């Protein structure tokens, strides 16, 4: 009986770890899918938008902790950091759309992809120039508390990461389903032609989409900073690519798919690491995803064929 419970606990423990890891991938990959849905291009600067968002979160958190500690309880500081960071980071998204992609709406898709990569490099080097190459450490926004439930360990930080990510996705779902902008975004993912003819301005919807993606990524950044409190200008590259893989695996343009694939990625990575040496983790995990994509090239929820007209 004992070993059975032990291995059950072991699995449960890893499920929680996988949920935490998957939360980052899910929240970030949504940004890729939303932009693809609306403009039919992948914003390759998104990983670096995540990075800039994390740095903004770092700045806001540092300031708020210095000014507000003692005045208000820690959860308020945390919430204020999230809200202000989201607001500021969403303007990074707007900037990327207006300065980077808008002039290239009529240009071949490759130009837009390259622009994204260049914006990413510009962001990385800007941070490098401003803050130097040294790694910064993200200040903890709450005291870590360990809970021991049954045979598994969970910290309040881990629980918070998982819960806040889920809440963000629920909020996004409501936004997409209920508001006029969300409906316009959904409509845009089916065609470009009729949407403006119904009185909707692409020049509002497109930057708003980038803004939402960037806002989500910045919260992911704050949460990431709580779990792995090291910031460096290239932190967005690998995470960005992995989230991009999740967006493809979920089906291009599918928000639901991106979120699910993000969690799946977390699960695959964590469980591969429990069986194989951790140096082989990404090698094996992404081989598995490659095999899945071979059998489902459109991902989980990709549209069978798009009738979408490109402007």
């Amino acid at each position, binding site marked *: 009986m004992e070993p059975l419970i032990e291995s059950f606990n072991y699995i449960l423990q890893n499920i929680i770890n996988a949920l935490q890891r998957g939360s980052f991938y899910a929240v970030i990959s949504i940004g890729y899918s939303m932009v693809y849905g609306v403009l039919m291009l992948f914003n390759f600067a998104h990983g670096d938008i995540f990075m800039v968002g994390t740095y903004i979160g770092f700045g806001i958190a540092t300031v708020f902790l210095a000014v507000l500690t003692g005045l208000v309880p820690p959860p308020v500081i945390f919430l204020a950091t999230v809200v202000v960071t989201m607001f500021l980071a969403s303007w990074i998204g707007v900037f990327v759309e207006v300065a980077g992609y808008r002039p290239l709406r009529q240009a071949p898709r490759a130009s837009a992809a390259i622009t994204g990569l260049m914006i990413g490099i510009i962001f990385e080097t800007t941070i490098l120039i401003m803050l130097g190459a040294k790694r910064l450490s993200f200040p903890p926004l709450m005291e870590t508390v360990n809970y021991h439930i049954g045979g598994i360990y969970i910290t309040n930080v881990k629980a918070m990461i998982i819960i806040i990510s889920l809440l963000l996705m629920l909020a996004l779902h409501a936004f997409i389903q209920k508001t006029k902008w969300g*409906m316009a975004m*959904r409509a845009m993912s*089916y065609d470009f032609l*009729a949407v403006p003819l*119904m*009185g*909707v*301005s692409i020049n509002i919807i497109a930057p708003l989409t980038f803004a939402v993606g960037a806002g989500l990524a910045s919260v992911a950044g704050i949460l990431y900073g709580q779990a792995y409190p090291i910031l460096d200008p290239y932190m967005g590259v690998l995470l960005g690519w992995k989230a991009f893989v999740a967006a493809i695996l979920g089906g291009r343009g599918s928000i639901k798919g991106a979120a699910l694939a993000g969690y799946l990625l977390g699960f695959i990575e964590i469980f591969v690491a429990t069986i194989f040496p951790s140096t082989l983790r990404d090698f094996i995990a992404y081989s598995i995803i490659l095999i899945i994509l071979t059998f489902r090239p459109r991902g989980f929820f990709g549209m069978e064929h798009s009738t979408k007209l490109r402007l």
Partner: protein
Amino acid sequence: MTALLDVKNMTHFFGGLRAVHNYNLNIAPRQIFGLIGPNGAGKTTIFNLITGVYTPTEGEIRLENKNIKGLETNEIAALGLGRTFQNLALWRHMNVVDHIRMAHYSQLDYGLLGAFFNSRACRDQENQVRENAHRLMQLFDIEKYADDLVTSLPYGAQRRVEMARAMATNPKVLFLDEPTAGMTPDELVKMIRIIRQVHQDFNVAIFLIEHRMKFVMELCESIQTLVFGEVIAEGPPEEIQNNPQVIEAYLGKEDMT
């Protein structure tokens, strides 16, 4: 009498190809106006030029005496030109009621904060939209499909969804691009009835492209015939029907097929 929609000397080139030449149009309030012509004559191009999908190379377009040439497509739509498409441009995987709610976009002016806090203005406007959508779905006889995805609807119903969506933008002129294409005779009769009803209830002018002569003759007060981007005849239905040029260019060909 001032025209509701006034197009003067509109010419458009696609590269070196002259698609529309010296086109004039004058639609009075509440008028039903028809545009006919053989395939490739440039009828849909004219729709695209007036509704702002393309900006004409030359010419002038005025809606209620206000210049609309060169405005953004969405601005023109918000000013009062609503339209449907020859090859249905519905949003697959969106349900019918969302299509119609979506088309109210330019009439909703609540902000992001209002939406976030579900402000009174936001709630009131959304309720208004829901009511209006309900009324439109009733009128177009698509109420029973309200929560269905558009792709699952019969073809004729899809056309009616498109038209309901166009009416939801609260247009002054409704552009219908071949509203009966691919319809069964039953659906056709229904469509004529609905167009008449819309015309009556909404006080709207209608500009329509059509291939079925019976349909055009029955509905339109005035008709233009377009051949190779130029209007060769304009007038009331009886006159157009008997115009030898029109018969040669258009009706003659159709009779042979």
